[in-house]
C-alpha cells in the first residue's frame, strides 16, 4: 500500500497508532461478516421453503450441497455427474479465456485503429454500432450454421460477448486522451507513430483495462449460451443437460461454480490492474 500513499502523507509523521487487537479483529471481520449476511438469509429462507416437501421442483440447499460435493469429489451418488466438475470447469475455463483472448486480439487493435484513424472509424464504426445491440443468444443459430455443432461455435459466441466491451472502451480510451499530453510529447520531440505508442497507448490503458475487465465478465455471462451449441462438456453444457433430466440440484451447482469462478477471475484481473496501473489514481 505504500506506493499508493500520497507523498505528503508519507513524509508526515506516522499519525495512526495501531488499534488494540480486539477492536482491529472486529474491524477486519466486519466486511466479510456483512458480505455473508445476505446469502446466509437466502439460504435459511430457501431451506425452510423447500425442506421436507414432496414433489418440490426446487431442491433444498442441503441436497445442492451434497450434489456439489459429489460433483467435485464423488462418492455419494456415483452417477454420470460424480467427480466430473474438474472436466467441466476446465472446459469452460478454456472457452472463456480462449474466447476472451480471441476477442482481445481482434477488438484491441481494431479499437486502437478506429480511435486513431478517422477513415477506419468512418468505414467500420456505423456497422459495428448496428451489430452491437444484437444479443449473443440471437447469434446462436447462425453460429451453429457457420461453425458447426461443437466447441468452435462456443468460442465464437464467448468471443462475441467479450468483443464489444473491449472495443468500445478501447475507442473511448484512445479518443479521450488529454490533448495536452500530445502537445507535451511533440514539444519534447516525440511525434507520429512513436507518439501514439509512447503516449496515446499508455494514456488509454486505464480505459482499455476497464474494457478487458468488463469483457471477461461478459465472457462468463455468455458461457451458458456458448455451450448450448452441442458441446458435451462445460458448466453451461451440464446445466442445459441436467435441466432436461430434471436434475435441478446439478443446475444450481453449475450456477454456483460459474459465479465463483467468474468472481475469482475478476479479482485476479483487478489485482493485475492494480499492479500494472499503479500510476493511475483511479486504480492505485
Amino acid at each position, binding site marked *: 500500500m505504500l*506506493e499508493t*500513499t*500520497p*507523498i*505528503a502523507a508519507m513524509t508526515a509523521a506516522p499519525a495512526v497508532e495501531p488499534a488494540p487487537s480486539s477492536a482491529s479483529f472486529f474491524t477486519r471481520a466486519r466486511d466479510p461478516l456483512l458480505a455473508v449476511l445476505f446469502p446466509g438469509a437466502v439460504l435459511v429462507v430457501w431451506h425452510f421453503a423447500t425442506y421436507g416437501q414432496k414433489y418440490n421442483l426446487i431442491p433444498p440447499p442441503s441436497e445442492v450441497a451434497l450434489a456439489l460435493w459429489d460433483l467435485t469429489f464423488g462418492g455419494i451418488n456415483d452417477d454420470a455427474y460424480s467427480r466430473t466438475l474438474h472436466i467441466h470447469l476446465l472446459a469452460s475455463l478454456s472457452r472463456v479465456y480462449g474466447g476472451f483472448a480471441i476477442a482481445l486480439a481482434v477488438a484491441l487493435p481494431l479499437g486502437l485503429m478506429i480511435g486513431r484513424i478517422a477513415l477506419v472509424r468512418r468505414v467500420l464504426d456505423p456497422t459495428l454500432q448496428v451489430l452491437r445491440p444484437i444479443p449473443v443468444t440471437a447469434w446462436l443459430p447462425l453460429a451453429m450454421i457457420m461453425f458447426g455443432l461443437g466447441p468452435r461455435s462456443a468460442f465464437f459466441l464467448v468471443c462475441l460477448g467479450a468483443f464489444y466491451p473491449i472495443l468500445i472502451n478501447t475507442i473511448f480510451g484512445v479518443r479521450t486522451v*488529454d490533448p*495536452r*499530453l500530445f*502537445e*507535451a*510529447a*511533440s*514539444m*519534447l*520531440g*516525440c511525434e507520429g507513430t*512513436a507518439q501514439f505508442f*509512447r*503516449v496515446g497507448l*499508455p*494514456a488509454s*490503458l486505464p480505459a482499455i483495462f476497464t474494457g478487458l475487465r468488463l469483457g471477461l465478465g461478459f465472457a462468463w455471462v455468455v458461457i451458458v449460451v456458448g455451450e448450448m451449441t452441442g458441446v458435451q462438456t462445460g458448466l453451461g453444457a451440464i446445466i442445459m443437460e441436467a435441466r432436461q433430466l430434471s436434475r435441478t440440484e446439478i443446475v444450481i451447482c453449475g450456477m454456483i461454480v460459474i459465479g465463483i469462478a467468474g468472481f475469482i477471475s475478476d479479482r485476479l484481473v483487478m489485482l493485475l490492474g492494480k499492479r500494472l*496501473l*499503479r*500510476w*493511475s*489514481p483511479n486504480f*492505485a
Partner: protein
Amino acid sequence: MRDTANPILELRGVGKQFELQDQRIEALRDANLRVRKGEFVCLIGASGCGKSTLLRIVAGFEKTTRGQALMWDRPIAGPGPQRGMVFQDYGLFPWLTVRGNIGFGPTARGRSTQEIKDIVERFITLVGLQRFADAYPHQLSGGMKQRVAIARVLANDAEIVLMDEPFGALDAMTRERLQYELLDIWQRTGLTVLFVTHSIEEAIFLADRIVVMSPGPGRIDSEIAVTLPRPRDVVASDFNDLRRELAQKLHSHHSRKAA
C-alpha cells in the same frame, strides 16, 4: 557560434484568427517582438489579450494566419525540443515516474541509456527532487509537479522555455519559492524565458522586460524594461512605482473595453 546580435526569437507582424462556428475571432493582431538570447521576458495582460496564443505560436502548436514567427531567423514550423513548454496544468505523463518524465525527451530523441541516466540524474538534482525520483505524478504536490515539468524541458536541451502561467495554480508560498528557483536556474544556465502571467508583481519580480498586451483584438500594447537590480525587493519603492505604472496601463485596457 551563433551571432548574439541576432534575436533568438522574432515575431514579425504576427496575426492569428480562429474560426469558431462561422464566427471569426481575432486572437492576435500585428504582434512584433524580438527576444535576445538569455533574456527573461514576461507577457502580461487581461484575459483575451492573446498572450497564450502568442506563446502557443512560438511553441509551434498554432500556425500564424499572418506574419512570421522566427527562431534564429528560421520560420517556426511546428513544436520542437529547442522550445520547451511548461503548462499551467503541468502536462506530465501520469504513467511515468519523475525519472521517466524527465527522461522522456532524451529517450524520444534516441540518446543512449547511459546518457539518459546521466541527464536525468543531473536535472533531478537541479530541481531538488532526488527523494521523489521514483514517485508518480499523482503522488506529487503541485509545486513538485511544476519542478518536474521544468526539469523535463531543460533535460531536452531547450534553448527557450515557454511558460504559460506556470505558477498560477500554486499557493502563494510555493509560488514564491518556485520563482526564486526559476531565477536561480535561469541565471545559472543562460536560458531564454518567455513567461506568461497575469500577476503584475510576478512580472516585475522576474522579468528583464515586460510586454504589456491588451484585448479586443489581442495585441502588444507596450513594453517596459525592468532595470531594478536583482534579487528584487518586492516592497521597495521603485518596485512599487513600476507596479503602479503597470497597473494603470492594464486598467486603462479594462475601462476602454468596458466603454
